[in-house]
């Protein structure tokens, strides 16, 4: 049985899109087996054990090196069986997975239900360094393997993401990670310091062969359980290059085949219109699911008044910023969510750019220029707000300057505070800011509880504003237990409208991710789920030197 959770939604957006579109390719050539592709990584994973790691780069690599019980169909975004041949939803809290027989790990050991049970239970060991995912899997109250090909899972209560969560759970090879007879501490130590965290043994169509410094090399796994979905290329390399300018030059030099961090300037500028680029490369963009915002600290008295927050949004010229910085290629956000999905209502209009209206709202809130110095004040105190952000992000820095400029026209002083990522995060977690300019990268549907529910209004949480609104709480709780997708769409949209009305954030933009890639690669499609591409589908055309017709 299939559970049609997500969205039939926008998939391919590529080189034909955008004002500077490239020529459309001729019909696809016949695929051949063999060859290699090198993919740029903007960060180096700490480990390839995704139970211990939360980074996007680890996840991207594991798309090819490991498999999960269910997978999101790249085109329809439905959850479909993967390691399991089928699954049953017995009731809203219980699921049964029937595993495919004959699956083997990259080292040749058979995969079975015990691997799944072991992988789920490790979150119960408090000493295992999987803190970042513990809460997500703590909801599983029972998991068992009645036989080697069956896994039975029970959650504590109905939850809209329950099936997706267990379906997406990182699975570890128990024969390499389980230490029979070990105490809890010894078992945790065995997992945390396991050499296979680096030398990963997985189930994916590609098998890790080396990870030396910045280069991770994987070769096609001949015993992959679904050969029809296996890769064409013999080798996939991931290469970490921190500096984007250097990585782009390496692409031009043929040392990288896919680069996913093209800046807007390069996407529209001379970097991608040169003869060299047009002859050998394509450019493309795809939805990123990420958006930027300024979280207002609602514990600060001057930001508690919703009129003040609305005024700040109305005094910033979003349209001018979008044109100058993104060349129009970005979505102005009016609430939380990934703007491409139907859970997000794109018809909700943003507040108008209206500096006079903003001034009026601020005056209603008691902020006027009493002493005639051009700056608003109230009870002898000037309206100055400090906005915290990570240093080194050119777009954030430009946005702060633009806000500073626009808000100075209505008498509001913005003081930017740029700190390195960790320092900024620490201050944000301790709520030592007025505004915090940051961003979220979201799947098509996500749980809004961590970011907006009142239960996370204090402590080290992601509810940065400290929002505590009964209506928001009610909608979140209703959405979480609504298993019918169509009904949930309505609930999440209502939540979006409520949040935009409350303005706990100054909602910014969702720009797409922009790619440049070698024309030697064929079968390159850009899809909605991260990482936006499917490397196992890439191929070199038949007849290319070093390729062959058969696997």
């Amino acid at each position, binding site marked *: 049985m299939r559970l049609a959770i997500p969205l039939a939604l926008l998939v391919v957006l590529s080189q034909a899109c955008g004002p500077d579109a490239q020529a459309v390719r001729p019909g696809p050539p016949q695929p051949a087996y063999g060859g*290699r592709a*090198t993919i740029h990584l903007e960060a180096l994973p*700490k*480990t390839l054990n995704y139970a211990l790691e*939360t980074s996007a780069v680890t996840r991207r690599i594991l798309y090819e090196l490991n498999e999960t019980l269910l997978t999101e169909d790249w085109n329809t975004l439905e959850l479909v069986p993967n390691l399991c041949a089928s699954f049953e939803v017995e009731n809203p809290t219980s699921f049964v997975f029937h595993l495919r027989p004959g699956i083997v790990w990259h080292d040749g050991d058979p995969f079975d239900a015990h691997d799944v049970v072991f992988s789920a239970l490790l979150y119960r060991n*408090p*000493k295992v*360094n999987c*803190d*970042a*995912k*513990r*809460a*997500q899997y703590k909801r599983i109250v029972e998991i068992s393997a009645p036989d080697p090909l069956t896994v039975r899972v029970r959650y504590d209560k109905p939850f809209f993401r329950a099936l997706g969560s267990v379906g997406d759970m990182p699975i570890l090879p128990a024969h390499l990670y389980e230490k029979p007879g070990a105490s809890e501490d010894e078992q945790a130590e065995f997992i*945390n*310091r*396991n050499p296979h*965290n*680096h030398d990963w043994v997985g189930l994916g169509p590609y098998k890790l062969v*080396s990870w030396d*410094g*910045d*280069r991770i*090399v994987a070769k096609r796994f001949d015993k992959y359980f679904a050969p029809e979905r296996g890769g064409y290329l013999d*080798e996939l390399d991931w*290469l*970490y*290059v*921190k*500096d984007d*300018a*250097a*990585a782009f*030059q*390496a692409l*031009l*030099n*043929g*040392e*990288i085949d896919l680069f996913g961090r093209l800046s807007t300037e390069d996407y529209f500028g001379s970097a991608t219109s040169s003869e*060299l680029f047009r002859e050998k490369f394509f450019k493309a963009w795809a939805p990123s699911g990420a958006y930027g915002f300024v979280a207002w600290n609602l514990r600060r008295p001057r930001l508690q008044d919703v009129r003040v927050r609305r005024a700040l949004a109305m005094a910033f010229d979003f349209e001018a910023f979008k044109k100058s910085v993104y060349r129009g290629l970005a979505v102005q956000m009016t609430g939380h969510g990934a703007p491409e999905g139907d859970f997000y209502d794109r018809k909700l209009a943003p507040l108008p750019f209206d500096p006079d209206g903003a001034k009026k709202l601020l005056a209603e809130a008691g902020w006027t220029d009493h002493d005639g110095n051009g700056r608003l004040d109230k009870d002898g105190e000037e309206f100055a707000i400090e906005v915290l952000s990570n240093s080194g992000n050119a777009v954030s820095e430009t946005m702060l300057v633009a806000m500073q400029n626009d808000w100075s026209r209505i008498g509001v002083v913005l003081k930017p505070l740029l*700190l*390195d*990522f*960790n*320092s900024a*995060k*620490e*201050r944000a*977690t301790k709520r030592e800011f007025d505004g915090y300019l940051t961003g979220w990268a979201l799947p098509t549907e996500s*749980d809004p*509880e*961590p*970011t907006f529910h009142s239960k*996370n209004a204090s*402590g*080290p*949480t*992601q*509810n940065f504003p400290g929002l505590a609104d009964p209506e928001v709480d009610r909608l979140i709780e209703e959405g979480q237990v609504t298993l019918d997708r169509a009904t949930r769409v309505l609930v999440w949209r209502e939540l979006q409208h409520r949040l935009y009305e409350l303005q706990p954030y100054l909602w910014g933009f969702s720009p797409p991710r922009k790619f440049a890639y070698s024309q030697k690669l064929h079968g390159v499609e850009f899809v909605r789920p991260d990482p936006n591409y499917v490397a196992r589908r890439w191929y070199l055309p038949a007849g290319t030197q070093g390729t062959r017709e058969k696997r």
Partner: protein
Amino acid sequence: MAAYLRRRLAWLLPSFLGITLVVFLAVHLAPGDPALRESFDPDAGSADAADIERFRAEHLLDRPLAVQYLHFLGPFDLSPRGHRWFGGSGEHAFGGLLALDLGSEIHRPHVRIVDELGRRLAVTAPLTLAAALLAWGIAIPLGAWSAVRRGQKRERALALGLFALHSLPGFWLALLLVLAFGAAGLGWLPVLGLHSAGAEDLGWFEWLLDLLLHSILPVLALALGSLAYLTRQVRASMLEVLAQEYVITARSKGLSERVVIGRHALRNALLPAITLAALILPALVGGSVIVETIFGLPGMGRYAYEALLERDYAVIQAVTALSALVTLLALLAADVLYALADPRIRHG
């Protein structure tokens, strides 16, 4: 000489401990919390307070700074797994700097720092050494020529060129080299890493050639960065020597200019270079963040920099301790060589 050496050696340990203490305090007093980074759950949206506490306890971050420093220094492991004398389980009794056990990375406990240092040094040290040899190989003749041709038009033009080179920011110089020699320019050289993809399948000669081609641009970037400074040092030293009476005597004896410059002046002019040469050693273990970042080289400079961003205290302390030790030893070696070369120092 023996007394001089003893005196210098006696200062080595307190200097080293002083440096480690300053670095330790600077790192721990700076903002940023490794426990928050490790425990933050992007899906649950919060860091569980119990998880944070457990992480802090495991890495002694909840203990007084003095205890943390002594744990880092060793030789006793003061963690819960450490020596029984200090309440540990005895599983790992000894550790720390004095036990020559640098431990594991905070965020990658499966990676032993000493192993990673070895891997990083294998990248940084040969490149820095090659760059130093290249820089000195150019700077010595260029500096000597500048001194001899002092004030001439060609010498002034060279000085201007060197100053311009010196003024270029390191990352810009590296990117210029990439633009000039990569596909966007002449297309002669690879611009990333030390090997091409699939280099492991090459024969030894092709493998070596691949390595050499990949090394050219980073070595050039490193060498050009220090060329101006070294050339000016050699020039200044040479000018000083050329004004000495023994050089005038050599000339008045009728020796050829080549012998006067090459045998008498240059050899003496290179004495101050001993200190500069000794300072290459710290660079060999320190690496260059910029060059390693632009050319995608997993070296020591980047290791330290990334550890700083990640607040990996164990790595930062290990790298700085190693750099401090090598710097102190290099300075000691320079002083000893100087003392051997110049009797006034060892008797002074």
